[in-house]
């Protein structure tokens, strides 16, 4: 079977989903969700204490997925670890058979449930990507030789809705130059607006995987519009959800429709279901994937 890295290289259309480790050690529901997605997706992202809320580690859960024959995308943020810990964890991932690492800055601890925590951010995402590539070449950030070097498939994130877009594009290019192989994006709802972004980045030879976040309610859409950077749910879509008899089915319909519209613009989709992973197979059916 092809790995995510190979699929990206051979320009296959990629489908990824996401699970969030629990606060605690009861991983039953996460593993059930993953099992449900197993035959339908190319890989599953495992979030790293998302929203700066302390949870079971993404490396451990990535390994649990691996043991079930599911390819994990290990999310690694710069929030909690200095360069020693980041490099060490990346090596740990490699010996555990985890190749895909999605590098993110990470939310500030003030946004999470331990606001008193010391923010680390010793490296930023660009520098971390660079460090991972150095390790592949057999040396660490201190230029010391590694005994056995790892091999990674490195992903990063980009926010097509960033305003202004230029500084985001500058950083995007830095990430590509540092060695990012694929990009997962912030949630996309306005395909027309996304198409403009896609055009701007077309000349970069990279793999863009568009983010799909299920909208559970009109309140959630309005909340995201107000509070989440780079997300814009058009009013028309909010009205559509508002008037729907069955909101889950509406969420499925909207996601599938968005995926269909995005297909020609991107090399894949990353579905963030926020707990509604059981709906993902239906979405993929409806989207013809």
């Amino acid at each position, binding site marked *: 079977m092809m790995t995510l890295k190979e699929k990206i290289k051979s320009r296959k259309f990629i489908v990824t989903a996401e699970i969030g480790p629990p606060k605690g050690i009861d991983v039953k529901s996460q593993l059930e969700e993953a099992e449900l997605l197993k035959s339908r997706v190319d890989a599953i992202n495992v979030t790293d204490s998302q929203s700066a809320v302390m949870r079971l580690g993404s490396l451990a859960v990535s390994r649990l997925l691996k043991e079930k024959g599911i390819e994990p995308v290990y999310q690694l943020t710069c929030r909690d670890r200095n360069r020693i810990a980041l490099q060490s964890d990346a090596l740990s991932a490699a010996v555990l058979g985890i190749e895909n690492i999605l590098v993110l800055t990470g939310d500030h601890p003030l946004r999470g449930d331990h606001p008193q925590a010391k*923010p680390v951010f010793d490296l*930023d995402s660009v520098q971390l990507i660079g460090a991972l590539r150095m390790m592949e070449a057999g040396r660490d950030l201190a230029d010391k030789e590694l005994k056995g070097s790892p091999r990674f498939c490195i992903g990063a994130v980009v926010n097509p809705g*960033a*305003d202004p877009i230029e500084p985001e594009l500058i950083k995007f290019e830095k990430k590509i130059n540092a060695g990012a192989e694929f990009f997962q994006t912030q949630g996309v709802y306005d395909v027309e607006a996304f198409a403009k972004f896609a055009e701007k980045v077309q000349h970069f030879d990279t793999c863009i995987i568009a983010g799909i976040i299920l909208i559970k309610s009109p309140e959630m859409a309005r909340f995201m519009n107000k509070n989440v950077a780079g997300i814009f749910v058009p009013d028309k879509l909010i009205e559509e959800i508002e008037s729907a008899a069955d909101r889950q089915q509406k969420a499925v319909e909207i996601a599938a429709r968005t995926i269909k519209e995005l297909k020609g613009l991107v090399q894949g989709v990353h579905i963030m279901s926020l707990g509604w992973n059981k709906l993902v197979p239906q979405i993929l059916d409806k989207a013809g994937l």
Partner: protein
Amino acid sequence: MIITKQKKTEDIMKCLEKVERVFIIGCTQCATVCKTGGEDEVRKMKEFLEASGKKVTAAEIWDTPCNLLEVKKRARDRKDDLSGSQALLLMSCGDGAHTVSLGTGMNVVPANDTLFLGQSERAGKFNEVCALCGDCTLFITGGYCPNALCPKGLQNGPCGGVKDGKCEVSPDIDCGWLLIYNRLKDTGNLDKMKKVLPPKDYSKSVRPRKIAVDAVRKR
């Protein structure tokens, strides 16, 4: 300038719980500008402590509490009042409080919390614009420091948390990287933002830092 903020009076009183005789020391420099250790504040503190039943042995503004030689000289000049006091209440920054403790050998109670190295925007409004990192890159970042202005201290551009030009940490904070971007763009220096900045060298800011300036020592 070192920016300070006065502690709550109930917290100061807790520190002075077992103290009857207090010597108050303000500062002619930063704490005067911050209104945490100038003449008015020292006088008010004296009145407050006396109204709370303390004996204020002296209330003075020193020039400056962070200068060890000056403090030692003052300690000799004010020997009697100092020795008649049980604690010194320092209305200065933490540097002043430490230096006076060292120079007098007495118990010191800080009246202020020391916050940051600040720019004075206008009377009473101070901004942190330098993080004292020991490795200045302002020539690359258009005069705006990412270590001071970005809560994450990112080196290579904004994170995904920018909303309406503001930081994810607070709508009161402008995104430091947008400030840098706008300045570089306005001055035709956007190329500088395209250059990858390497990981910062934190060995340059290991505490406690000391420096002996040769030109002064040889004088």
